[in-house]
Structure formats: structure tokens, C-alpha cells
């Protein structure tokens, strides 16, 4: 069972959600999950681009009450 770490990036503005994510994912074991919460609408496009560039997969994503949620698997 993969371990999930939660990163609360709510309230942060571009580019800090992906900066914090890039920093935090380095602390996650390979294959483990990082769940990021963000309120920046730009996150949807930015996390997709970040995932394509870094190879860390988005395994789940959604939005609820203005909070975007991304579950990422460390490559």
C-alpha cells in the first residue's frame, strides 16, 4: 500500500503551488503518493504541464468548492 503525503497549497499563487510540490515530492519515496490541495485555478493546466515535464504521474484529480485536488505518484 502506497503512503500518501498531503501538501496544503491552498491560498498560494503561481508559481508557488508547483514550487512547493516539486520540493515536497523529493521527500516522498518513489512510487508513493503526494496529494496536493490548491485554490489557484491555473493549477489545472500547470499540474498537467508539470506532470508531463517531470514524469510524475497524476493518478487522480478533482475540484470541490473551489479546491483543486491532485494525487501525484512520484516517479
Amino acid at each position: 500500500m502506497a503512503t500518501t503525503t498531503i501538501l496544503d497549497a491552498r491560498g498560494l499563487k503561481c508559481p508557488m503551488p508547483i514550487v512547493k510540490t516539486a520540493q515536497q515530492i523529493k521527500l516522498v519515496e518513489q512510487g508513493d503518493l503526494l496529494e496536493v490541495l490548491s485554490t489557484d485555478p491555473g493549477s489545472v493546466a500547470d499540474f498537467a504541464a508539470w506532470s508531463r515535464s517531470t514524469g510524475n504521474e497524476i493518478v487522480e484529480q478533482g475540484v470541490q468548492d473551489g479546491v483543486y485536488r491532485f494525487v501525484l505518484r512520484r516517479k
Partner: protein
Amino acid sequence: MTAVAETPVPQEFAAAFEENPEATRQLVIINWSGDFDRVLPTLILEDAAAAMGYKTKVFTTFWGLLPFVKDQKRIVGDNWMQKMLSFMQRPGISHLKTTKMNFMGMGPWMMGRLMKQYNVASAKEMLEAAQAMGVEFLPCQMTMEMFGLKKEDFIDGLGEPVGAATVLELMTQPNTASLFI
């Protein structure tokens, strides 16, 4: 199993950002300006690029050197003209002026207030994040001398001073985006 990440992110990740052999893309920025509204996009792009796993290098030259001088330095330079320049354009990442509507510091002050209000990271925070992610800052040797700036005037962690040829070589490498800001 779920663990909540501590905020702020601890410093131990810094080692993980050391020279990434898998990095296939590179961003090279020539940071020529020391103005608030130009340094900010430099910082945003370099932070994002480093987060994306790009090799990221910033060549700082001319007015663009001044934001990388320690905040607490007031007057830098050896002769009166260099000192005068630094008096008119206060160095340090926390003392940037805007290109438009500076109004004796009113412009940057209001911009700073707005950034705080909308929770945008400050220039200082973005610079610290860039350094933690291994963004390389390369000061321009020639303009350093012209402004009378010494290595010890700058914040810690900057690269060795280089010249135009080094930057051109970086800019013409494959898969490299180069910007002059």
C-alpha cells in the same frame, strides 16, 4: 497511511535538486534589469522552471546585479560615482523600484501590499525558493567591476562571475529557452 506535510518544507530537499542528470531542458535568463516589474517575472519563471526539472541559469548583468546584493548593504562601490549610483538605485531584493509609477517608493509599496493581500510570494521568498532548488545565478564579471561590486557584496550561493561567451554557449545548447528580461 496518510501523513500531512509540514509547512514550510524542510530544507533537506535541497540536496535532491543537485545537478539532475535526467534534465533534458534548460532555461537561461539574462536578468538585465533591477526593476521590480522585470525581476518578478524572472523569479517566477526560474522558480517554475526549476520545479519542472529544467536546468535553470540566470545571468545577472548591469542593473540586474543589484537585486542580488545583500539587502542590508546600502552603498556599494569604490569611487564616488559607483557609490552615487547605488545611492540612487538602492541594492537588494527587498528594495526594487517599479519602471512605471515609482513615485518615490509609493508604487512598489502599493504593489507589495497588493501582493500580500492576494497572497503572491514576495521577490525575496521566490529568490530563496530558487536557490533552494539549485537555480544557478551567474553574475557578469565586467559589469560587477564597473559598478564596483565585490563577491562579498552579494548574497551567498551565487555562482562564479562569468562573461558573454559563457552565456552565449549556454543559450545555444539544445532544448534551451533563452530570455532577456
